[in-house]
C-alpha cells in the first residue's frame, strides 16, 4: 500500500484552475508531515496539454498522468470519471484531492461512488494524523461548526477544496515523470451526455477574492439606486462589491459569483465595509478572515455588529451619498 497523494488538475480551455495548483501546494505540505510519505502525483485530462504539463511540473508534481486526446477537449463527466477510476484502480493512491469548482464538484463525488470510497466536501483545512491518514476539516451549518472528517476504511481518502481557501502554491523544482494514459478503453464508454459548447468571459473589474477593499451590501441597502452607489464607491476605491443571499435574490447585485458566504466566495480583504447586512452565519463565515471589518446598520442590535471591529449605527441612505461626495463621485 503506497502513501501517494494525488491531485486532479482541472483545465478549462487550456487554463489550469487556481484550485488545482493550490491543491498541489497543499499536497507538498501534507507530504512533509507524513512519516512514510509517498509521491505527489498529478492527473491532467484534456487536449493539447504539453504547455500545461510544464506548469504542473513547476509546483512539485513528481509524477504526472496525462490523458491527452481531442475527445477530452471539453469536460465530459463520463470520460473524465472513467479515466480517474481506471487510474485509481490501477495505482491505489492514498489520498486524492480535487478542486471544488463547478466541474470538480460534480466529478469528485462521481469518482467516489465509482471507486467506492468517501469524500469530504469543501474542506477549509487538511491535516495528517499520526497514521499518515488524512483529516479533512469541513464546515457545517453555514460554517458555524467545523468538523473533522476521516475516511478510515476506504481508499483513496478524497477531499475537495474551494478555490482561494488554501495558500498560494510555491514553485518547487522537481524532476517530473510524465506518464501518458492509454485511453483506448474509452471506446467502451458511450456517454449519453454530450458537451456541445462552452462560453467563458473575462470577469469585469477586480476579482472579489483579490480586492484589498470589499464593499458588501445586504437586504438593508433597500433598492437598486443605492446599490449603484456601492458599485461606484467600490470602483473609485479600486475594490469590489460583494453581496449577501437576500441582496442577490432581490436582483441588485451582479450575480451569484459576487455572493460572499459559505456557499459563495470566501474573502479576506484588508478592509471589509458592510452596508445593510444582518449578519447571517453563512455570510459571516465567508468574510471572517477580513483584516478590518466595519459594518453600517441602522439597527443597533444587528447581529453583524458582533462580528465586526466597528459597528456604525446609521442610515446608509444618508451615509452613501456623503461618501460619494467626499470621494468626488458624481
Amino acid at each position, binding site marked *: 500500500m503506497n502513501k501517494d497523494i494525488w491531485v486532479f488538475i482541472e483545465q*478549462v480551455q487550456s487554463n489550469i*484552475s487556481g484550485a488545482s495548483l493550490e491543491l498541489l501546494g497543499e499536497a507538498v505540505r501534507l507530504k512533509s508531515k507524513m512519516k512514510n510519505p509517498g509521491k505527489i502525483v498529478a492527473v491532467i485530462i484534456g487536449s493539447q496539454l504539453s504547455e500545461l504539463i510544464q506548469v504542473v511540473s513547476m509546483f512539485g508534481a513528481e509524477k504526472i498522468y496525462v490523458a491527452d486526446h481531442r475527445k477530452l477537449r471539453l469536460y465530459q463527466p463520463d470520460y473524465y470519471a472513467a479515466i480517474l477510476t481506471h487510474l485509481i484502480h490501477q495505482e491505489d493512491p492514498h489520498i486524492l484531492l480535487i478542486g471544488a469548482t*463547478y466541474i470538480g464538484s*460534480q466529478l469528485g*463525488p*462521481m469518482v467516489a*461512488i465509482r471507486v467506492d470510497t*468517501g*469524500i469530504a*466536501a469543501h474542506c477549509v483545512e487538511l491535516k495528517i494524523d499520526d497514521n499518515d491518514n488524512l483529516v479533512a476539516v*469541513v464546515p*457545517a*451549518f*453555514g*460554517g*458555524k*461548526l467545523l468538523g*473533522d*472528517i*476521516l*475516511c*478510515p476504511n476506504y481508499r483513496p481518502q478524497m477531499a475537495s477544496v474551494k478555490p482561494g481557501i488554501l495558500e498560494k502554491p510555491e514553485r518547487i523544482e522537481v524532476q517530473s515523470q510524465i506518464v501518458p494514459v492509454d485511453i483506448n478503453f474509452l471506446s467502451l464508454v458511450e456517454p*449519453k*451526455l*454530450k*458537451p456541445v*459548447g*462552452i*462560453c467563458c*468571459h473575462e*470577469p469585469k473589474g477586480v476579482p472579489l477574492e483579490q480586492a*484589498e*477593499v470589499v464593499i458588501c451590501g445586504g437586504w438593508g441597502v433597500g433598492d437598486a439606486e443605492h446599490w449603484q452607489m456601492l458599485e461606484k464607491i467600490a470602483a473609485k*476605491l*479600486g475594490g469590489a462589491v460583494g453581496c449577501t443571499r437576500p441582496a442577490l435574490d432581490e436582483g441588485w447585485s451582479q450575480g*451569484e*459569483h459576487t455572493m460572499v458566504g459559505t456557499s459563495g466566495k470566501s474573502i479576506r480583504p484588508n*478592509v471589509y465595509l458592510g452596508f445593510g447586512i444582518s449578519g447571517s*452565519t*453563512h455570510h459571516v*463565515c465567508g468574510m*471572517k478572515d477580513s*483584516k*478590518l471589518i*466595519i459594518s453600517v446598520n441602522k439597527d443597533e442590535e444587528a447581529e453583524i*455588529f*458582533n*462580528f*465586526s*471591529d*466597528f459597528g456604525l*449605527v*446609521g*442610515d446608509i441612505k*444618508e*451615509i452613501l451619498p456623503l*461618501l460619494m461626495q*467626499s*470621494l*468626488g463621485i458624481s
Partner: protein
Amino acid sequence: MALKIVVCVKPIPDPAYYKDITIDPVTKTIQREAIPTIINPADKHAIEEALKIKEKFGGKIITLSMAPPNVIKNIHEALAMGADEAYLLTDKKFAGSDTWATSYILAKAIEKIGGIDLVITGTETGDGGTSQVPSQLGEWLKIPHLWNVIEFKIKNEKEVYLKTKIENGFMEWKCKLPMAIAVSREINTPRYTTIMGVMKAKKKPFQKLTFDDLNLDEKRIGLVNSPTQAGNLHLLDLSRKGKIIKGSKEELAQFIIDNLKAGGISVEADPIICSCEGETGNE
C-alpha cells in the same frame, strides 16, 4: 409525453437559527433539537422546475425526502406548491448516513418508485452543504447527470438541451432522458403556496418507506457504515470586539474614510463637513 419526475426535497434545520447551535460539552454532540425545520431553499427551485415541466408536458411529480418522521409540515408545503405525491424515507437505520450512503438509499427508493424520466434536486443544502448527493445519486441510478444547471429545455422525443454554470461562464449540453439534474437557484423563482394548494396537499398520496421496504445492504448505511466518519467538532468563535460607533451621518461617513486609510487603502477624499453645523443636536 407525460413525464414521471422525482424531486428530492430535504427538510433542514432553519438557517436563521444556526447562530444558536451549540455543542454539548459532555457528549460532544450538536444541540439542534429546538430548531424548526424548513424545506432546503435550493430544493424549492427543484420543485418549481418540475412544476414548469409538468405544466408544459404533463406528468406526475413525486417528492422524495429522507428525514426523521416529524417533518410532515415541510412535505405538505412541497405538495401545496403543486407536487402530486410524496414519499418520506424514515428509519433509525438511515440516521447519520454520509453522502455515499444517503445517495445509495435515495437511489434504491427511486428504483422502487420505478419508471422515472427525470430526477431533480437543488445544488446544495443549507445544513451539510456538501453538494455531493445529486451527482452521487445519478451515479447510483446509472443515468446521465449534471450539476448546477441554469437552463433546461425538453425538445422532442425526450431529447434535452441544458446549460450548466462554470467559472466565468457556462457549458451547453445535449442529453436524452432519463437523467438527473441539480438546478441552480437562478434557473427560476419558486412559486408561493396558495390556500387552495394547502387544502389540497393534505389529501394527496403520502407514503412512508422504511429500511424493510427497500432492497438495501444494511452494512452500507447509517452512521457506522458510512465511508466518511466524523471526528472532532469545533464551534467557530467569529466574534470581534464590535465597538459601536454613533454620531451624525457626517461623522460616520468620515469614520469610514479615515478607517479605509488606516486599513491601507489609498483614498483621495474631501473632508466631510456637516452642512447644517450648529443646528443638529448630535454629540
